[in-house]
């Protein structure tokens, strides 16, 4: 049953679904990081989203922003590593930008994405093309901005496609940020593990609102 807007409790449900999928994807994400980094991306994500899920389960949210921010703070303080800081800022900044809204629609999704991308860019300095999760985030953000007039399911689908396209574009890129940067040309041919995570998240969200 498709959802036009999400209540705080539905956002919570959606994030728990995302957590489950990320936890399940540990091996796939670590394997992706073994190709380009130090092989622990899935471990960090699993650690963070296991903690986030626990937090979320007892949360009785009154705003949608609160659900995202709680997730961000938990990821930030339990993950560590590059993705801990990035994921943490992403959800925290996105959540904060939603103010005290008590539901999420396509416009809110765009607000979230713009703030999330800005936070990540300010923190890590990565631009699209650097072969990081910023490529997936930028793809998502562009799609969100273009989908403000659509229904939430349509918008989420567009954002998910944008994230996945951004992720897929990283395959052909040379890494210039993070651990993969010393690989130079050898980094070509594999997707950035953080971008894979972003793409997975929006796929789950799309299915949820779907």
């Amino acid at each position: 049953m498709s959802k036009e807007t999400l209540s705080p409790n539905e956002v919570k449900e959606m994030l728990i679904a995302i957590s489950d999928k990320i936890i399940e994807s540990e091996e796939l994400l670590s394997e992706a990081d073994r190709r380009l980094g130090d092989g622990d991306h899935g471990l960090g994500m699993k650690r963070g989203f296991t903690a986030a899920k626990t937090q979320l389960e007892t949360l009785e949210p009154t705003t949608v922003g609160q659900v995202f921010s709680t997730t961000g703070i938990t990821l930030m303080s339990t993950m560590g590593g590059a993705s801990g800081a990035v994921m943490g800022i992403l959800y925290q900044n996105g959540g904060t930008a939603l103010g005290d809204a008590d539901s999420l629609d396509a416009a809110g999704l765009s607000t979230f994405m713009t703030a999330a991308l800005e936070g990540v860019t300010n923190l890590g300095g990565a631009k699209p093309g650097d072969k990081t999760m910023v490529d997936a985030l930028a793809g998502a953000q562009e799609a969100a901005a273009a989908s403000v007039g659509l229904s939430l399911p349509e918008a989420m689908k567009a954002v998910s496609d944008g994230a996945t396209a951004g992720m897929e574009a990283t395959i052909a890129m040379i890494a210039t940020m993070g651990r993969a940067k010393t690989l130079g040309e050898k980094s070509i041919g594999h997707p950035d593990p953080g971008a894979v995570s972003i793409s997975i998240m929006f796929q789950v969200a799309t299915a949820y609102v779907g």
Partner: protein
Amino acid sequence: MKKILNDPNAAASELVDGLVDYYNGSVEKVGPGAIALTDIVENKVALLVGGGTGHEPIYHGLIGPGMADGAACGDIFAAPPPNIILDATRAVNKGNGVLFLYGNYAGDVMNFKIAAQIAAAEGIKVETVLIWDDVASAPPSAKEDRRGIAGLIPIVKLAGAAADKAQSLEELVELVTLARDNTRSVGVALSPGSIPATGKPTFELDEDSIGIGMGIHGEQGVGIEKMMSADDLAEKLLNLILADDLPLESGDDVLVLINSLGSTTMMECLIVLKKVKELLVAKGINIYDVMLGPLVTCQEMAGLSISLTKVDDTLKPLWDAPCSSLGYTKL
């Protein structure tokens, strides 16, 4: 691969507890992954180090008199999150500010940056010096893209001595920057270590291949070559350092560090040291002191690195100061 562990996912937290036990009273836990000296004097300019665990004895084994005042420990191979860094920062701050000294990795930079912002908001003065000694990871023109490897050992030792004498955080930054700018390293990988939680090797390498410039997490090196003799390898690595932008001339004094990445034996390090000394002596460069052994490790990874720190009249007295820690002690 057999490893002596309980729950692999709890390895980082258990090892930090064991580390505090090893310090046997001189260091205490001030948060989940945060540790600090118990008796830091009031008004001392504090030195905080940190990074992922799994590379012991760094960073968290480098706390003690004449060394660091505290450390923030992340999970295995993962930068510590901001809250751990903050716990450690608050504990070591004695009113005169805190220097963050750590390796230049995206994860560490971002997490320490967030922690620094919060600390500043709390009124704690914080400055940062990044360690980027690995000449193989970027050209001299892009130092800020280089990662930190074994050169952090002499840098932290010099920084520890500097923190004892510095009157201000600014003075400490200046001295530590000098130590950092005078240090160059390059490593070689022979075989991978493993990630405790997955049991998987950190990378793959043929039985007869070695990776020149491979990072301490198994990040691939600048070049895969065929296995060679100890003498040839020593010469190849040393030349990569000598070709860099740090001028090293006859009459200069250097600290030499031959670091094992884990399972490479002291025997092999000593054989490499013998050749490095021959080559330096031939150039008229004087060895001021030597460090050697598994100081910056990546689990049971095989390989080693060579680091040189050029010491001048400012750095020599800092080096000569006694210090004590689990990883490095000097009488």
